[in-house]
């Protein structure tokens, strides 16, 4: 058993941290919370130059063929810096296309996604706010050599800046809800699409996407008609683990900020970190951070190696969802009054921890999955 990163991963982590400290400071993150687009194109261009938008693509599409585990290592640093860039959505779109798309479609979309020239996001969830196939009510109706899409998608990340939407729709009614699901590659400016950013606790750009008689050519279908659901499930799994590694990075940084604060804040004639009520909270945060790390990377490693990972993924999300929240709550307690202020950084992490908690299903949902995995 080897719980460490390899040399390449260590280098990637170090480079990513240095780059993000320099190019994505918290001041920029704050700015982007108020920004209409929510991301700085200039930073995204530099990130693409680093190869981060293309790293998991095969070489023929301009990538490095990096593993999912490598991506997770990078993503932890992105979570530490809470960098305001749409990499999560671009990566998952790439994985979905790699899984389902024809060679022609891959050639059409992947290089531009890898170079940072285009941005894509998957439009999956709907007002029912669930991740199972039964929740997909958006319809795709065949009409000659076109499909007509109708429905509402909700909580679609970065739809407002996306050039391409990968829309998950029900193309056929079925008793087994996992049948009859198809994916369509739809340019975001297609007539009939209206995108409205929601105002969220994390001030990220999750959007409502209304599809009103949106006509797409037959060539927009990605993968088998009626048969896309298992690929969607695989992408959801990756999404869960990515959000978990992102959480590990954020929680680690919150711990560092909190210890820093406890050492410097003086009350009753001494740094408050000398009081056990404070230092013990920090110890509990440290246990939570380390606790998250290994169950998350266990799931990441298994996914990356192509091993069955359902239970490990459920454990990772079932733990991390609550743990990241706990760490930020304890961190706030230690920060005291100043932490409640907008100009302190910890509140940015507190708000994002809630987003990470509920995306892809919260801890209760995943505990139920674990219970099923135990045979209960």
């Amino acid at each position: 058993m080897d719980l460490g990163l390899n040399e390449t991963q260590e280098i990637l982590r170090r480079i990513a941290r240095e780059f993000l400290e320099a190019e994505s400071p918290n001041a920029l993150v704050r700015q982007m919370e108020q920004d209409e687009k929510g991301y700085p194109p200039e930073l995204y261009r530099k990130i693409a130059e680093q190869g981060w938008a293309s790293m998991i693509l095969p070489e023929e599409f301009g990538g490095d063929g990096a593993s999912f585990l490598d991506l997770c290592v990078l993503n932890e640093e992105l979570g530490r810096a809470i960098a305001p860039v749409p990499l999560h959505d671009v990566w998952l779109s790439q994985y979905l296309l790699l899984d389902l798309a024809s060679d022609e479609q891959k050639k059409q979309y992947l290089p531009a996604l890898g170079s940072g020239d285009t941005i894509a996001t998957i439009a999956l969830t709907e007002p029912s706010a669930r991740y199972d196939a039964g929740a997909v009510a958006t319809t795709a109706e065949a009409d000659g050599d076109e499909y007509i899409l109708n429905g509402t998608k909700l909580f679609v990340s970065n739809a407002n800046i996306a050039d391409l939407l990968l829309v998950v729709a029900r193309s056929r009614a079925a008793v087994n809800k996992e049948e009859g699901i198809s994916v369509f590659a739809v340019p975001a400016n297609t007539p009939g699409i209206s995108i409205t950013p929601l105002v969220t606790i994390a001030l990220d750009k999750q959007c409502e996407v209304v599809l009103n008689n949106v006509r797409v050519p037959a060539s927009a279908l990605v993968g088998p008609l009626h048969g896309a659901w298992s690929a969607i499930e695989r992408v959801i799994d990756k999404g869960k683990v990515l959000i978990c590694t992102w959480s590990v990075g954020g929680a680690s940084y919150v711990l560092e900020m909190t210890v820093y604060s406890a050492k410097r804040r003086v009350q009753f004639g001494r740094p408050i970190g000398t009081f056990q009520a404070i230092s013990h909270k920090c110890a509990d945060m440290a246990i939570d951070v380390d606790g998250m790390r290994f169950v998350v990377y266990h799931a990441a490693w298994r996914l990356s190696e192509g091993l069955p990972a359902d239970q490990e993924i459920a454990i990772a999300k079932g733990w991390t969802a609550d743990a990241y929240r706990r760490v930020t709550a304890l961190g706030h307690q230690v920060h005291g009054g100043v932490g409640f202020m907008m100009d302190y950084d910890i509140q940015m992490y507190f708000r994002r921890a809630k987003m990470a908690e509920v995306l892809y299903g919260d801890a209760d949902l995943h505990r139920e999955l674990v219970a099923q995995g135990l045979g209960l």
Partner: protein
Amino acid sequence: MDFQWSAEEAAFQKEVREFCIANLPADWHEQYQDDEEAFDFSRVAAKKLGQKGWLAMAWPKEYGGLGASHWKQALFNYETSYQRFPGVGGIGIGMAGPTMMIYGTEEQKKQWLPDIASGAAYWCQLFTEPGAGSDLASLQTRAVEDGDDYVINGQKIFTSGGHHAVFGWAGFRTDPNAPKHRGISVFVVPMDTPGVTVRPLINMTGVHAQNEIFFDDARLSKDNLVGERNRGWYQMATTLDFERSGVGRYGAATRILEEIVEYAKDTRLNGHTIAQEPRVRNKIANMAIEMEVGKYIGFRIVWMQSKGLIPNREASMSKVWGAEMMQRLANTGMMTMGMYVQLRRGSKHAQMAGRIEGQYKATVVGSIAGGSSEVNRNIIATRGLGLPR
């Protein structure tokens, strides 16, 4: 990164599993005996482990061990705990022996090590005093030089197994004028020494497991002082290279959780199985998740040691997590049973042989003994996070 066991490690774990099953009664897991009741059997078990060289497997071969790697030791501890195989570890194996190996004379090693490694001699620990618990270095029991002997006066408390032990591994104050850490020496105490009185303590599980030990002018030969006089406290730190991941706790916990799951699936109450109740599913699943979290907090220590790194705050984390997790596990088991939680082993209608009721009481001490949660959180905070004292 690799979360799987190597073929060699997996084979060893299988070997341990088969040995345990072959040497335990068939109905071992259906009964619930605590460590004290199973004591005699545990000594038989220890000697069998001794014969295989497994009891002291971490020790160098020259002292009766196998020089086993950290991973092997951890796997052994995990599997024997999962199988509830008694007789593993102990003060002789984990503390007295290792300190003696480094600091003892050849005569001392010849005299005491072989019987520890074979399982023939059971040891207890004589450190804690009524006034020296978490502040262990403040211990006061005096060892005064007198000719070829030291004369011991004072009292120890909470001595587990003191009534069974042949030898005690003791910390006594040999210099009352030095700063507290610098006036302690370690001694081997034959428990039948005149002047040594063992008085039973009954703990809240109803069992005589711990004792008070009184020293009234008890005489020890100077040959029983191990290592350097007044350096006893610092010598103890060198035993830290041995197994301290706490993974054994997860072996035991995994078994209990499996039994809780079986119980929930098999037991019907009010028209459905207990396993169908949403809050039960949620709590049991959370326990399973906590156990995975804790398992790697433990194995992370083994991984560090295998890389030659010295775990410090990581060991404290494992102790805090492990002890408190066992309490939460007992709570989870209790919650699964509703009103039946109250029924002790032996009672009509008692569930799971009363194991959960017993665990619920027994685990109270886990976050207190062997380094309290408060002390360990202090270590995490100060040595681990660099917070000021």
